[in-house]
């Protein structure tokens, strides 16, 4: 039984959900609107606490955040799937644009919302490799996979791998990889949640991550199963609106072309590059009262500038690794299973990419403004991953809007991480426990295993996030490289070459896995201060954020060579590929 159908069975068992009906939808709406009306003045008054860059409990942003999270849960309940068909074909009742919004919401995480601006703030043009990598991968995903994946008709990456390579062991390995990718991806999200909770609650990073982790776990257990498309569309609107409003304000306030900040900030980039004298615009200042000025800093915009410590090779390797990683991420691939037709799968990518690009065109604006507004040494060293919020604060944007921005960052992380935890828990309970370990498990037991898996994953992810191993964007990039070395070759060859057989898949997986293990072991060792042999060479060419540049080609070549040397793919699989996938 497909995982989605099983999830529906689980949902049906939740009494709370089964009791809700159309009448209660109306009641919910009656509750939400007065609640917002009541809270708004309180939030407006309390938002004054958002002025501080660090420290102090900020009640306004806290109320905004709680309101948004409650709204997500309520929307999830109101628009929940009424029956199996409704949930199974989530896209049937919505347009391609709506489906694209759901893809974008699923995709836009703390790495997009907070991490991208941080990467550009910290390393200038080098950060654009992440922007290009995370968007260019959708071209590969669309033209090489989207339609075919939908036609194949499986519901998880592990299902596809198990069926295409006719092996229960491969299914189990696929599930384990999906769990590892979910964990790796979630670590960056937890770090982002921790940072924003730190900003809102005024606690240290450790407690912020623990509290943030507990909140996201509770949120996931309550709403995780309600992740229907309608909720994702609303999440997208909240995330993108909270991200865009400060940009219009900043560009207007500092006298740039504010009608389209994504173009208007070109002059901000040039101002950072060629310098800006305070005498020219003496009336403009940051929230500290420092003049809006900066010494010429071409290192911000020039490619692979020596000042950033980044090279041409690293730019190319990151862009390539992220692109193939995008086309191999299980939770992204899974989005195509819930659309009714292959053509819908294709068009939803176009719209999804467009909605994602709105955010990706905008993120560099924060980093460019951040550079000028924090140029005075008195501002001090700022946490790069929180630069989006700091920029808005330094630009004296209204505290309520800064609070909304921070809440948008947490929402972006929540919307992705709850999906990842559910996907990881599904892989654990469905692909591993039910399909491999205990096929006779009762639905109650399955539900228990899914919950146990969610809690276990949250604990593991929180523990790793506490180690503070890197920037959010970099931590998420590890998941992309892992997916690029393992899942991507299996899908690419599995769809486009019937000659790829079980032995080839195992060989390719071992090769890609080996590259991944070497890179990650060296990365962890370095972080722990342990120097392993050839560490400089490995750290440079197989850095944890871009090892897929070589790992994926090695995995693909190994898969092909081993497949050619071993027994042919069974006729049933080849027949299925021709008759179902490529017709």
């Amino acid at each position: 039984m497909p995982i989605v159908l099983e999830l529906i069975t689980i949902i049906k068992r939740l009494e709370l959900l089964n009791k809700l009906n159309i009448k209660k939808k109306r009641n919910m709406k009656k509750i939400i609107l007065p609640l917002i009306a009541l809270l708004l003045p309180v939030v407006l008054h309390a938002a004054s606490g958002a002025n501080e860059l660090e420290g102090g409990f900020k009640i306004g942003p806290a109320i905004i955040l709680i309101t948004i999270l409650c709204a997500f849960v309520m929307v999830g309940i109101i628009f929940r799937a009424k029956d199996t068909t409704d949930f199974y074909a989530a896209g049937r009742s919505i347009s391609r644009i709506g489906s694209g919004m759901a893809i974008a919401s699923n995709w836009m995480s703390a790495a997009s919302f907070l991490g991208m601006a941080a990467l550009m703030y910290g390393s200038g043009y080098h950060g654009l490799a992440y922007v290009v990598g995370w968007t260019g991968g959708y071209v590969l995903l669309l033209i090489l996979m989207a339609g075919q994946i939908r036609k194949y008709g499986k519901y998880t990456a592990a299902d596809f791998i198990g069926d295409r390579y006719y092996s229960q062991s491969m299914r189990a390995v696929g599930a384990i990889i999906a769990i590892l990718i979910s964990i790796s991806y979630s670590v960056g999200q937890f770090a982002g949640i921790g940072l924003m909770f730190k900003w809102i609650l005024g606690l240290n990073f450790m407690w912020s991550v623990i509290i943030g982790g507990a909140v996201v776990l509770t949120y996931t257990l309550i709403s995780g199963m309600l992740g229907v498309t309608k909720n994702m569309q609303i999440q997208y609107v909240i995330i993108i609106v909270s991200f865009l409003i400060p940009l219009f304000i900043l560009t207007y306030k500092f006298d740039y072309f504010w009608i389209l900040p994504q173009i208007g900030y070109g002059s901000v980039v040039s101002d950072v590059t060629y310098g800006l004298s305070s005498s020219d615009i003496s009336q403009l200042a940051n929230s500290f009262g420092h003049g809006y000025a900066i010494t010429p800093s071409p290192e911000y915009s020039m490619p692979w500038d020596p000042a950033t410590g980044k090279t041409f090779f690293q730019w190319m390797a990151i862009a390539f690794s992220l692109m193939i990683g995008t086309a191999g991420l299980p939770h992204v691939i899974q989005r195509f299973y819930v659309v009714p037709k292959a053509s819908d799968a294709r068009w939803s990518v176009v719209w999804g990419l467009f909605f994602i690009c709105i955010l990706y065109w905008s993120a560099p604006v924060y980093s460019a403004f951040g550079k000028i507004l924090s140029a005075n040494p008195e501002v001090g060293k700022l946490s790069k991953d929180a630069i989006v919020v700091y920029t808005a604060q330094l630009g004296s944007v209204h505290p309520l809007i800064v609070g909304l921005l921070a809440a948008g960052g947490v929402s972006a992380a929540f919307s992705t991480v709850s999906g990842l935890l559910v996907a990881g828990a599904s892989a654990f309970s469905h692909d591993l426990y039910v399909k491999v370990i205990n096929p006779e498990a009762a639905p109650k037991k399955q539900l228990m295993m899914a919950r146990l898996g969610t809690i276990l994953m949250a604990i593991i992810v929180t523990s790793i996030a506490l180690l503070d191993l890197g920037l959010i964007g970099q931590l998420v990039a590890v998941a992309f490289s892992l997916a690029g070395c393992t899942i991507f070759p299996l899908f690419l060859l599995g769809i486009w070459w019937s000659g790829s057989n079980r032995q080839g898949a195992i060989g390719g997986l071992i090769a890609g896995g080996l590259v991944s293990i070497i890179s990650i072991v060296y990365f962890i060792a370095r972080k722990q201060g342990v120097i392993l042999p050839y560490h400089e060479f490995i750290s440079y060419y197989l850095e944890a954020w871009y090892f897929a540049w070589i790992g994926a080609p090695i995995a693909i070549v190994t898969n092909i060579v081993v497949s050619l040397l071993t027994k042919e793919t069974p006729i049933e699989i080849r027949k299925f590929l021709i008759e179902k996938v490529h017709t």
Partner: protein
Amino acid sequence: MNQENNYHISFFRPTTQRAKTNRNTVLWLISIWAVAVFGFHFLLRAIEKPTPEPELISFNEVWKDVKAENASVEEIRIFAKTTLHVAGKVFITTEERAALDNGISWAIMQLADSMQKLSLKDALQEFETIAEKNLVVTNEDYVASKKKLGAIVQQILNLNPSSVLATILPLEIKSSGLSVLSVENMTIIEACMPKYMIHNRSVLTDTKFLGFPFHYFYTAVFLLILFIALCYAYCVRVDNYNKKVGIAE
């Protein structure tokens, strides 16, 4: 056996007209994608030239004498201004800033006359004492002492008070660095000046487009538009082909 051989899928050896059309479309789009992303950056790499900022050329002209401690007043002034220029840059590290601060402080002391030295020391001591006590940069005492120190050092270095360098100068003066420019810090300064003032530039980076340096616009804005256009073109092409041959998905 013969029939079994018919059941074989290979992207590069399509067996049907539809598969051939799809392969050609995919190859075209991937070629455009690859050339636009990687081809452009190879081009950027091929035509770039490491270009020093004018301040680095000035620094290199005086550095030898400053290092040998036989620099003229004008040379020390140039040294102070160029190191201050780098101290105001965006990616500077804490260690490098400390070394540059030592260089700037030492140079200011060398340039000051005896009266200025006395007032500089007093103003600096007052500023550092207040700065230690106050974490808030808007504190009135802090602002006043910074202004007082700023007026002295700006005069010594002949800086326009409203310039960016004049704004950051009082923050880069440290009493611990007034008397000696240490050998260790000299080494750091020597290394970080070219690091921060040589940039990979070309016609693609120096041309402006919609306010952006062209290469920045191309990567941050245009490539994303291109990706959407490629996806759109693929969907239209597949839909049109399916319609033409009467395939309903």
